[in-house]
């Protein structure tokens, strides 16, 4: 134990390899993907194979890679020392990859955000059944997804209205889910529903709803401000009949409040990851502005006009560094299996804000070039991509509620 902030040799190699891939291979294609509203499957397949051959740690390839095989990512203390920590590696890699294109991370095949609840709450049979889908993707890529948000319940997860009732050996689901990443192309969605809204969290049930289940259909595909290469779908459940074997964890799991906890537990590990992605986008914009300024100005003399620009650049770099260290801390705590809800929320809140500021400042510093010139259009894209990072996985305000409750344990609600 000693305070130090250098990556292990292996982490450094991974960071460098992913970084060069992100900037040399991914970035040049990202505007095209944005305009085409998707990333070609051949590229995703090639990328997935390449990632596997580079042999990163279990989680090192971002959201979708997190436990892609469904195996626990936990390591022995000895292994942890050697690897530098799986979650630390993950956030380091996610930041690098996001400098190439943030949408790519969301498009990668695998269980996605559906992975953590199946892994954490599923029975051994369920884990085997639902993760085996991803074992062989040679015939086509496969995705999993996580369907919680509804038109009437976003941040207030406890307020979901999608209903479920038991009929014989099936559950019948009715309702709508929205803003579901990869929801339309997913082989299965983890869908949250309630047996009785008046029961609050105790009434929640989580189901794995497979593609093709009778009564399950895809509504509209959203037209978004940014992350346009990522699919965001509306899901419609009309007397959707789900076999009882697909109730996540089985009936007895729901005698406690664990249904809701299943939904929330997903976030303690994904928030640092989302923060890292945001920081990656912010860093891309910041580095773009630094390069732009270097070419246009000589900043070695204390001319006030230049000093003002220098100060703005410095503050963008500083705030990204602040968010990065909060993210590393949340990840480091996760690797040591220490509760990190507060730190994860700090990372997420700081990361989203620092990166939005970075993109806005970069555009301003580059002036009109930042918004229109052909060679600067990545900046315009990052500016559109970044806003949602202060919204999804819990808005900045929700993060502050989480932090407040940890600071004041007797605070139940506002």
């Amino acid at each position: 134990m000693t305070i130090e902030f250098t990556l292990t040799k292996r982490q450094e190699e991974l960071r460098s390899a992913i970084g060069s891939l992100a900037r040399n291979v991914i970035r040049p294609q990202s505007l095209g993907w944005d305009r085409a509203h998707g990333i070609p499957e051949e590229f995703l397949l090639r990328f997935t194979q390449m990632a596997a051959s580079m042999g990163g740690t279990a989680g090192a390839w971002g959201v979708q890679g997190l436990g892609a095989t469904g195996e626990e990512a936990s390591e022995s203390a000895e292994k942890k020392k050697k690897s530098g920590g799986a979650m630390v590696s993950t956030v380091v890699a996610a930041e690098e990859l996001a400098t190439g294109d943030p949408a790519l991370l969301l498009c990668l095949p695998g269980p996605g955000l559906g992975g953590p609840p199946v892994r954490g709450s599923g029975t051994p049979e369920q884990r085997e059944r639902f993760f085996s889908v991803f074992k062989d993707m040679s015939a086509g890529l496969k995705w999993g997804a996580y369907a919680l948000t509804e038109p009437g319940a976003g941040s207030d997860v406890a307020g979901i209205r999608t209903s479920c009732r038991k009929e014989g050996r099936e559950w019948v689901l009715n309702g709508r889910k929205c803003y579901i990443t990869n929801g339309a192309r997913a082989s299965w969605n983890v869908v949250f529903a309630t047996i009785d809204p008046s029961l609050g969290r105790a009434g929640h049930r989580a189901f794995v709803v497979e593609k093709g289940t009778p009564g399950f259909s895809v509504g509209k595909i959203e037209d978004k401000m940014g992350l346009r290469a990522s699919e965001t779908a509306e899901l419609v459940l009309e007397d959707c009949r789900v076999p009882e074997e697909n109730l996540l964890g089985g009936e007895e799991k729901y005698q406690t409040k664990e249904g809701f906890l299943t939904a929330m537990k997903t976030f303690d590990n994904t928030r640092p990851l989302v923060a890292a992605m945001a920081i990656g986008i912010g860093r891309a914009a910041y580095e773009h502005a630094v390069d732009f300024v270097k070419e246009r100005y000589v900043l070695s003399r204390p001319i006030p006009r230049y000093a003002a620009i220098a100060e703005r650049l410095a503050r963008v770099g500083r705030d990204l560094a602040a968010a990065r260290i909060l993210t590393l801390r949340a990840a480091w705590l996760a690797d040591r299996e220490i509760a990190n809800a507060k730190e994860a929320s700090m990372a997420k809140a700081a990361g989203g804000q620092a990166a939005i500021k970075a993109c806005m400042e970069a555009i301003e510093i580059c002036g009109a070039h930042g918004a229109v010139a052909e060679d600067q259009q990545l900046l315009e894209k990052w500016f559109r991509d970044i806003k949602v990072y202060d919204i999804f996985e819990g808005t900045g305000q929700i993060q502050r509620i989480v932090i407040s409750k940890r600071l004041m344990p007797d605070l139940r609600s506002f």
Partner: protein
Amino acid sequence: MIDFEPTEEQALMVTAVSQLASKLRERIRQTERDHGLPAELRLAAFEMGLGGGVAVPESHGGAGLGLVTAVLLDETLAVGDPAAPFALGGPGALAGALHELGTPAQASEWLGKLSSADRCGAVAWSEPRAHATRAGFCTTATRSGDDWVLSGVKAFVLNADRADAFVVFAQVDEAAGWAGIGAFIVERAATGLTVGERKVTLGLDAVGAFDLKLDGVKVGPAARLAGGEDFCRSALRFFVKEALKVSARAVGLSQAAFDASLEYVTNRRAFGKPIGHFQAVAFTLADRAMDLEAARHMVRRSASLWDAAATGAASERDALLASAQAVSMSLEGAMRAGDDAVQLHGGAGFMRDYPVEKYMRDAKQLGLCSMTKEQADQLGAAVALGVALDPAVVLPTPDLQAVFT
């Protein structure tokens, strides 16, 4: 590998210093009124190894415990009283100046001489005003045979009243601007040296700030600090490392302000519930907690990079960039912490019954010690842009903003 946890030895030292900090906290107002620490607490701090030489290598007469240890201890002490780390016995800021600018022999000699709870060193850098016609200091050092003669006025010198020796910066080559500055060790007893009146300051009352007048002060050739291969670069290292220690104190101050705020908003009730249970208050607290965590670990990370740079395991460039960011973040964070602490206390915060108005005043003055956040930002930008580190921009010169040293 990434690790946020101090060593066992560091943890033990932090625990001991933390107990001292509690005692300082109890008498924070008296220390302020007395313009100094009580002798017994200064002695206790000295016996714990505090007082300037923690991070100086053993080869230079220091404890050789590294900058990480130094910032951990300064942060811990400042939780008790943010002014205390400035008011200790021992060489203080002079230790760092001698480490970076002097030879091992010079440093060892003076760290040894000043190693006592009743002794003290000081650094005289700033001047009352910028030179009217050229870059550089108004204070000059001119040759007189083998000796040097120093003349001029230095300003904002902390602890000048009780200092036994000073590192005085002066112009040795007028034509060379900021590249023509030098530094000298000057003893308190030197003929022609006078310490001005104590200035009435905004905060940090436990430590005094003074002008230092030099009227033809003659020093021998051994008093000159050569400053290694590149004097300004060595001076920059001194200021940045000193600024990191000040930043650690800013983190300690932020922690104290945060603790006071949390306690107040938990106990103070309005409209039927603790005021902390209103979102506007709770979110303010959450934001300050985020600033505090980020600043704390940025300071520690920067210190670890300097420790690694000393053995070639990290680049000086990385250490400079991380430090500039940490300094900017922690000084700004401390000001927000102090301001919000007063704000959350409402009218009570304005009264001296509570410590938060002192934290707010101390925070503003901390932001003017060693390096300001504006200077840190200019340094950070210069490193990030990869331009030459022009002393006029990256050193805290009186041309831009004078600092307390």
